[in-house]
């Protein structure tokens, strides 16, 4: 009786392992699986294991056997395996012994003959042989069973490997007997199937979770975009229910997203006009459905855009109803700007009418012959001329301001002497000052101090300052124009001081704003509120200088221009 063929000493690990705990067996298996492929091509077949028994599988459970393994062990596969190590082999010598015994009984030799000893020896030997075979086969059977269980256990614990019959490392070659082979093949293909299914499921799961996170990502992105827009947005479905809103909309109409979702829109918004427009968009043909309107909410003006919303999830009814998306844009600023502009235009028109009135009036007088003599006629001509000049200056002022602000003014910078330009402005204003008894003095720097500037613009700016000083100073007051160079900063300061009405502290920051006029001084003199704005634009925007202002009500004001020296 031979034992199951070993491949030498490499078989001993399994022998030892059969008394180890199963977990360690698995670890060892894993280790061996990882062994290099050079061992793979060993001969996988092993001589058959003699010894066969027709007995049923051992009823006694082996150590650490799981129920599934046990059922496998006791099942038909196990029987197939165990045929290789069957105890049936013991039948042969047993049968031989019985036959011999029968022969001896039938043909007994003479008593005391040596033949009796021969018979006894032979029968005895055969019985002993049978016994030995039995013992060995049982042992082998046990071992084979353990091996089977090991294989099954190891195989059932593999999550990513396969029972590979081609792995001809020392361990497997010992296990894989021809009897084992069908079982192992069965297990292998079953495991392979299961593995395949698991892989497919895992793959599908990965796909799905990828798609889910992509979809989530897209949804989050869309929601972020809608929130970032900052304008109130509402979306209604074909039944007038709110399906989407952003924080701006919730704030404007004062509702909370969770409460309002899927509510009819007329419960959320009370603006009849907006609701009517939404209804129109809903009913209208898709192509003609957009609507625009303006609304006032809480003191702000909103421009609304309503458009049809076609929802792909089958929400469009057969009668052509679709949802509505509403976008509201805060146009309060634009409205104010437009209002300011039209106010500006009417103020401009008003200002222009005054000199024009003089021109028209005096021309008519001349036409009607109301000027009796040459002196009077001369006077009329001069008045007409002055008025025409004033008209021209006003128009220039207006145009300059709007061009500077739009950035389209044509600037012609050249080195100019600040002193010369200032003197010109003073001379221009002198008649007006004298008419009001105001003394106009100047303290100018040497001509040599120059700035790189547009002559006309700088002239206009200085003229405006002096003009204001004269306008807002009562009779017999004083206006002085002073220039101070600051060589250390390479700047020059031009100051116009007056002993006029002064500006209230709270108004000082607003003085250079367009159209701003000090309320208290409005009656003292006419003005468009543009002069100082022009000064600021010219000095700061065009020449990178600064404007300064100090003032005290009742005492007077000092306006300053700081320009960079050449």
């Amino acid at each position: 009786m031979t034992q199951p063929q070993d491949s030498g000493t490499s078989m001993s690990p399994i022998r030892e392992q059969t008394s180890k705990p199963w977990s360690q067996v698995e670890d060892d298996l894993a280790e061996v699986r990882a062994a290099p492929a050079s061992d793979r091509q060993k001969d996988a077949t092993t001589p058959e294991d003699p010894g066969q028994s027709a007995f049923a599988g051992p009823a006694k459970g082996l150590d650490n056997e799981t129920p599934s393994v046990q059922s496998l062990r006791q099942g038909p596969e196990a029987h197939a395996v165990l045929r290789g190590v069957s105890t049936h082999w013991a039948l042969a010598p047993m049968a031989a012994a019985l036959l011999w015994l029968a022969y001896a009984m039938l043909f007994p030799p003479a008593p005391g003959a040596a033949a009796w000893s021969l018979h006894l020896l032979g029968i005895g030997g055969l019985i002993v042989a049978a016994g030995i075979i039995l013992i060995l086969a049982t042992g082998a059977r046990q071992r084979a069973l353990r091996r089977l269980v090991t294989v099954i256990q190891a195989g059932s614990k593999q999550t990513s490997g396969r029972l590979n019959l081609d792995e001809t490392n020392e361990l497997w070659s010992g296990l894989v007997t021809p009897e084992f082979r069908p079982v192992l093949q069965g297990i292998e293909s079953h495991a392979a199937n299961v593995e395949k299914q698991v892989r497919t499921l895992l793959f599908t799961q990965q796909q799905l979770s990828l798609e889910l996170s992509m979809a989530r990502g897209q949804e989050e992105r869309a929601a972020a975009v809608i929130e970032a827009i900052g304008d109130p947005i509402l979306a209604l479905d074909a039944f007038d229910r709110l399906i989407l809103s952003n924080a701006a909309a919730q704030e404007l109409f004062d509702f909370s997203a969770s409460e309002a979702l899927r509510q009819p829109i007329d419960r959320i918004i009370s603006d009849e006009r907006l609701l009517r427009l939404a209804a129109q968009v809903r009913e209208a043909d898709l192509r003609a459905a957009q609507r625009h309107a303006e609304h006032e909410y809480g003191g702000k003006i909103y421009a609304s855009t309503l458009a049809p919303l076609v929802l792909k999830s089958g929400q469009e009814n057969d009668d052509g109803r679709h949802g509505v998306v509403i976008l509201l844009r805060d146009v309060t600023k634009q409205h104010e700007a437009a209002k300011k502009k039209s106010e500006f235009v009417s103020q401009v028109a008003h200002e222009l009418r005054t000199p024009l009135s003089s021109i028209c009036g005096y021309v008519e007088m001349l036409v009607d012959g109301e000027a009796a003599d040459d002196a009077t006629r001369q006077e009329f001509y001069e008045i007409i001329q002055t008025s025409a000049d004033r008209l021209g200056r006003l128009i220039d002022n207006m145009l300059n301001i709007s061009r500077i602000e739009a950035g389209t003014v044509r600037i012609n910078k050249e080195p100019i002497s600040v002193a010369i330009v200032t003197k010109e402005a003073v001379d221009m204003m002198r008649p007006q000052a004298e008419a009001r008894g105001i003394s106009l003095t100047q303290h100018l720097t040497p001509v040599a101090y120059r700035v790189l500037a547009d002559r006309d613009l700088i002239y206009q700016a200085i003229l405006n300052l002096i003009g204001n000083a004269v306008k807002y100073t009562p009779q017999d007051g004083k206006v002085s124009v002073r220039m101070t160079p600051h060589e250390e900063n390479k700047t020059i300061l031009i100051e116009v001081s007056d002993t006029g009405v002064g500006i209230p502290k709270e108004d000082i920051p607003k003085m250079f704003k367009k159209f701003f006029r000090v309320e208290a001084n409005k009656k003292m003199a006419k003005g468009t509120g543009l002069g100082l704005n022009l000064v600021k634009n010219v000095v700061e925007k065009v020449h990178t200088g600064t404007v300064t202002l100090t003032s005290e009500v009742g005492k007077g004001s000092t306006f300053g221009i700081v320009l960079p020296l050449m």
Partner: protein
Amino acid sequence: MNAHRILVCDDEPHIVHVVAMKLRNGGFDVLTAADGEEAFGLACESVPDLVVTDYQMPVLSGLEFCAKLRAESKTCEIPIIMLTARGFSLSEDDLEGTNIRKVLPKPFSPREVLASVRELLGVVSLEAGSVT
């Protein structure tokens, strides 16, 4: 008979000058003022037969001046012609409480001013051929 006295006020000296000259040449006695305050003082003092005033004036605006005239018993009956550069004509509310009879836009025609004065005072021009 005494020539009618007209009070003309406007903060634009050229305007005052041309209106005054036209009216004087038309045979009227003319007083002038440069702001509403000054005008009111003169009106109370010399009680003119008619007032021609600008809408926009410093110190006291045209409307305020007219309201004051209406409130004052001496001057409440004086008819007033208002000149304005404002594109719109004055509203009913503005004219309420004043004795403004006519509003003329600027640029105005001195001829038209003279004609309106004559009309309001019921004066027929004695100059050759010209009738209001």
